[in-house]
């Protein structure tokens, strides 16, 4: 990464979006290198959104795994099933995303095993926030999350970003797609929506992302959590897996 001449221009491998990562390296004499990496994760090309309805929550995400400007894969599942009644959607650095969601999933199942009762969605979201906040000042996980779950039939959706900001929301979105999704949710979301109504809103959002975003992801996966548990609800594809 660093050449012998002492002039250092470090380009980190840009996993998610060339627009989102700015890497600036300053050099000084000697071997002191000040390395600043701005990773504004608020604007990744990854798309993640969640909408709560009457007794259920839907979480959707794109299924692209990108390396630099190349799409390596279009069948990546970014929505982790934490337990029977909890979903965790995650977007961000590929490794961090998988590592962190698996870590949370393992800890939730350890809690349930030890104590004989599972954590509520609220507790799970707060636990996740705590882990993210602790990691933030060490080796942060660069991923944005949505946590959704059902407790005694009551749905809840939590927005959680890589800086460990936690909010309970009716609907939420991460990444560039949030710019379009949020305004659509603002306009169209009402309390007590049915699955059909929510899926209409999802399709509206995906259509807008595809119409507006220069590098829109081709495929989306939509999962649902309701009184019957978690499952895949729908797929929206324009590219086939090769």
């Amino acid at each position: 990464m660093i050449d012998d001449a002492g002039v250092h221009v470090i380009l980190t491998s840009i996993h998610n979006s060339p627009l989102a990562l700015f890497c600036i390296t300053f050099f000084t004499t000697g071997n002191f290198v000040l390395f600043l990496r701005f990773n504004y994760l608020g604007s990744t090309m990854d798309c993640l959104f969640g909408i709560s309805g009457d007794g259920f929550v839907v979480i959707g995400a794109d299924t692209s795994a990108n390396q630099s400007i190349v799409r390596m894969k279009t069948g990546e599942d970014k929505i982790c099933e934490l337990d029977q009644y909890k979903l965790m959607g995650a977007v961000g650095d590929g490794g961090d995303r998988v590592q962190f969601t698996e870590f949370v999933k393992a800890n939730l199942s350890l809690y349930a095993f030890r104590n004989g009762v599972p954590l509520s969605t609220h507790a799970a979201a707060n636990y996740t926030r705590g882990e993210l906040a602790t990691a933030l000042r060490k080796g942060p996980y660069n991923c944005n999350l949505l946590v959704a779950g059902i407790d005694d039939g009551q749905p809840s959706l939590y927005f959680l970003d890589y800086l460990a900001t936690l909010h309970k929301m009716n609907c939420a979105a991460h990444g560039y797609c949030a710019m379009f999704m949020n305004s659509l949710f603002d306009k169209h979301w009402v309390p007590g929506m049915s699955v059909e109504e929510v899926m209409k809103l999802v399709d509206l959002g995906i259509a807008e992302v595809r119409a507006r975003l220069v590098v829109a992801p081709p495929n989306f996966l939509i999962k649902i959590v309701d009184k019957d548990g978690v499952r895949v609800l729908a797929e929206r594809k324009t590219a086939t897996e090769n």
Partner: protein
Amino acid sequence: MEAISHAGAAVGVLSKEGVVLAAEKKIMSKLLETSKTTEKMYKLDEHIAAAVAGITADANILINAARLAAQRYMFTYDEPMPCEQLCQHLCDTKQGYTQFGGLRPFGVSFLFAGWDKHFGFQLYQSDPSGNYGGWKATAIGANNQAAQSILRQDYKEDISMDEALKLVVKVLNKTMDSTALTADKLELSSVTRDASGKVVYHVYTEEELTPILEAANAAAAAAEESSS
């Protein structure tokens, strides 16, 4: 274990509407100023309280550990700690001191009274070995055998809060050495829920306690009368 069977008794009774705890205040000397507030009842968190029998100094250490654990849980999960988890946490600590030589175990038995969303109102008893169990009605400390046999006789499945209150007082009345109960000889507290669902820990004041004790004394006297 030996120390605890001499310590002032503590009794707990579980009902559908709440849990009642009562404890005997041992009067060592008439010169000793009895504490105005509780000395054997501790609030561990908003939703859980404990009564102690044994070495008070040891109890303070464990009470502190319990309060810390409850707050840590609240910090991590933003939810109150389930009662059994708190009890288990404390018993794990106690068990640790039975495992290795060189250190003395905590000479304390606890009664935990609390409410959580999983199992509602709960009453737990723990001993110095680290054993614990959930009870409908139980007693620790001096004369706990006698106390438990009264509880076994008088406990009903659908006992009301009022009846539970009377029962604990009756038990203490029979197991304590003194002839008549007075407010300065015992502590009484309850864990209930208010109309909004909030858990309320209430310590009975002397004014609240006196009529209950007078009624208990009268009932005991009446029972004596009829048996003789």
